């Protein structure tokens, strides 16, 4: 419709603003939104390709030039990056309109968006519940119709899990598919920028813009990016789909289990061949993740020391300044992870923890490699439970960490994985996770689209 000029981008923006006016006070998805600036930019003569003149909301850990980018942390108070992340550059080039910064767990440390230093975001399906995290702001904004598309980042499930809990689509691409340049790092070897949208097609469109080699990210892949839209409607007849036994553990919510089993039937109905498979090292994934991710985080967060930018607590002595700044700048969960990461990298513990975790990580990768010799895709729940009440797990980090148990393996292995809505458990959305081989995003999208088109879960809207 946009292309045919049946509607103007300004109209879309205004209707989004109206919706935000209506519900944002309750949802609290955004931590920065400059409506005037957005309108001004949209009206500006943009001499670029306007093939993607769509508003895109951006998670607060992705750098947007001269806009607050704080990772929802006090320590980055006042920080405005002097540069655009590569994904932002690419979006601007095709005419996208950057639509505010969404709330998140501080530095993406969390699964509920409750660790944000600024506000608590609520699940549009039930405002007493968490939206999931860490990209909870992006997920809630899309689910509450306060955003059309959003960018998130996924280090251990931070796109897929909130997408599942908010009843939308969330896609984490293969490690190296999307440039990380400008994504404020948490777990460098694990994370990818990805998409949050109402349906699979929108995610495919957004991914098409942001994917591809970037010479500024040495870990980005030079492999060509296929035309994802071309694959969407190809169907999944003859696809071999694995159902990993290890993902159907005892802690799995009954409603979630039923929805996934129903989804498997839908896949079979579409002509896919589903078989039970094993990923024997999955049970170590959470432990491995909670060594590697905090280790990398503890190093990545060293730069927040009050010297160059962000918060600084003036003290006479340099090291006191460091201590004070970090003490006041970081929240509880950030401190927990920094301490954990520092510990596992320390002399005498490195071999015991970090080194061993890397070894087990290779076994997990090997599990996937073997399974993908016989399967094109894997199906699993995204999260073991639907959303939980705000405050319910915040004081129990282990409980909180467990909510990422099904999403973490894809990050450790670097493979692409999507979460699509697959129904409800006691009125709260449930997500189905589809995992694919590295750099086979098109197959994941193809299967997700086929499933989505034969159900109508993605058309259900939160009544807010």
């Amino acid at each position: 419709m946009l292309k045919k000029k049946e509607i103007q981008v300004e109209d879309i923006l205004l209707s989004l603003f109206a919706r935000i006016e209506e519900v944002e006070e309750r949802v609290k998805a955004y931590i920065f939104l400059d409506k005037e600036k957005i309108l001004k930019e949209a009206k500006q003569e943009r001499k670029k390709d306007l093939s993607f003149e769509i508003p895109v909301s951006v998670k607060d850990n992705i750098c947007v030039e001269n806009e607050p980018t704080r990772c929802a942390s006090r320590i980055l108070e006042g920080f405005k990056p002097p540069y655009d992340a590569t994904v932002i550059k690419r979006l601007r080039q095709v005419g996208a309109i950057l639509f505010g910064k969404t709330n998140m767990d501080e530095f993406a440390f969390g699964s509920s968006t409750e660790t944000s230093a600024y506000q608590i975001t609520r699940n549009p399906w039930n405002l007493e519940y968490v939206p999931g995290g860490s990209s909870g702001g992006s997920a809630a904004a899309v689910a509450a119709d306060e955003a059309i598309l959003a960018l998130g980042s996924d280090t251990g499930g931070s796109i897929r899990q909130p997408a599942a809990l908010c009843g939308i689509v969330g896609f984490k691409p293969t490690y190296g598919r999307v440039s990380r340049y400008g994504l404020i790092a948490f777990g460098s070897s694990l994370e990818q920028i990805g998409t949050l949208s109402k349906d699979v097609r929108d995610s495919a469109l957004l991914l098409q813009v942001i994917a591809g080699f970037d010479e500024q990210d040495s870990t980005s892949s030079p492999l060509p990016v296929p035309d994802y839209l071309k694959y969407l409607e190809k169907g999944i007849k003859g696809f071999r789909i694995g159902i990993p036994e290890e993902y159907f553990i005892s802690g799995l919510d009954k409603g979630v289990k039923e929805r996934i089993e129903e989804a498997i039937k839908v896949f079979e109905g579409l002509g896919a061949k589903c078989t039970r498979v094993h990923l024997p090292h999955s049970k170590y994934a959470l432990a491995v993740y909670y060594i590697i991710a905090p280790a990398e985080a503890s190093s990545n967060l060293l730069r927040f020391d009050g010297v160059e930018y962000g918060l600084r607590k003036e003290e006479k002595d340099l090291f006191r300044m460091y201590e004070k700044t970090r003490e006041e700048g970081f929240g509880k969960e950030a401190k927990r992870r920094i301490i954990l990461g520092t510990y596992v990298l320390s002399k005498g513990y490195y071999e015991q923890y970090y080194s061993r975790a890397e070894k087990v990580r290779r076994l997990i990768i090997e599990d996937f490699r073997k399974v993908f010799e016989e399967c094109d895709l894997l199906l699993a729940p995204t999260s073991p439970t639907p959303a939980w009440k705000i405050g319910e797990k915040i004081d129990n980090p282990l409980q909180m960490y467990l909510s990422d148990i099904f999403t973490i393996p894809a990050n450790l292995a670097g493979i692409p994985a999507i979460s699509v809505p697959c129904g409800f458990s006691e009125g709260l959305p449930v997500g189905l996770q589809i995992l694919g081989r590295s750099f086979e995003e098109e197959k994941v999208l193809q299967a997700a689209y086929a499933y989505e088109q034969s159900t109508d879960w993605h058309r259900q809207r939160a009544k807010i």
Partner: protein
Amino acid sequence: MKFKTFIGLEVHLQLNTRSKIFCSCPVRFGTSPNTQTCPVCLGLPGSLPVLNKEALKKAVKLCLALKCQISKEIRFDRKNYFYPDLPKGYQISQYSQPIGTNGRLKGIGIRRVHLEEDAGKLIHTSEGSLVDYNRAGIPLLEIVSEPEIATPQQAYEYLICLKSICEYIDISDCNMEEGSLRCDANISVAKEGEGLGTKVELKNMNSFHGVERALRYEQTRQEKVLRSGGEVVQETRLWDAQRQITLPMRSKEEANDYRYFPEPDLPIFFISEQMIEQIKEEMPELPEKRRERFKREYALPEYDADLLTREKEMADYFERCVELFPQPKTVSNWIMRDILSYLNAHKKEWKDLCLSPERFSELLRILERKEISINMGREVLTEMINTHKRAEEIIRERGLLQVSDEKKLAEVVERVIKANPRSVEDFSRGKEKALMFLVGQVMRETKGRANAQIVQKILRERIKRKEEGLS
């Protein structure tokens, strides 16, 4: 009591690449603070490193020149610590797998050569400390020797030799005063036969001679401690160049744990045989080889060959001169004795020399034809360097052409003989020295232009004739 000294050197070299090691900022010195920076070298959140392949190539070059084993897989690690000159809170370095290991330089083992990034520079003012990040991200090579250097003098030689190699392969300016080469040392003294002693680290030296002096001071200090029955404390000491002593560094509160781990933002780089072969082909002849060739090809003594090949530019200069004036030893003598002493006296370096081999060999040809004396030649050379004029021009302007005309000289000799009867008599009585005095008088009369050998000849003839006439 006999002692043995063990010295190890840790050198940091700034590579002379055009851009920094992990971003495209130019490597430029003397610019205003924080102008040669970007999000990457400032360590801004979200920025990522991209390896400068030129830095890797230069590192491989040095490893080859030092005969190191070269790692096939190049990995980087993070060295984590807080300091304001370190924008990311970690330095990208190499820990578990340095580029080069097991090398050799002047018979000294090289333990490892690794690539890393430089930090920024702190500037302390009365109002507080400031940071300049222009230097942050300049590629550095760390070269660690085994503790096999036996004397401070040998440590100095090691540094000279390393500098020489680096200049030959064009990887660094190696200027310690300007900080493009930094050197820390460790030294332990022990009773002969007792193996390594207690290691003391020395920092804060800012010249090669400084390194030598600091080591010498420390060697003596440790020997004194041992001789008096004491024990050397393991510590880091700072060289105080003004007082010419080492002092213990204020001890850090606790030992640093750098928590090294593999840099996740950089992939593994592979060094192929092909790449090594290609770099080998591009390598110039190294000083050691060139020295041997100079001895062979130009029949130069060891001393000359060694001195001439230390600096590539000097060796190139020498070879060009020999092409133009094929008397190697004469060229060598003039370079070593005259040009070098001129440069030393004026505290200049070879690259500052404004004298082309073409013009220099013109002077050598004039000297060969004995148109001017050797002493005159020296003066002319100095003037050539100072004024950039050609030798001929200077000689013409100053009327320096040597007088070799016997008739003209005979007149002067006659006058001198008449004026100095005592000396003539002395010489006749066998006092050879008196003749030299008479030659000197002739030189004075001719303002130094007389050909001394011809003057001597005429003097001897005339005095002899006189004696015969008298008897």
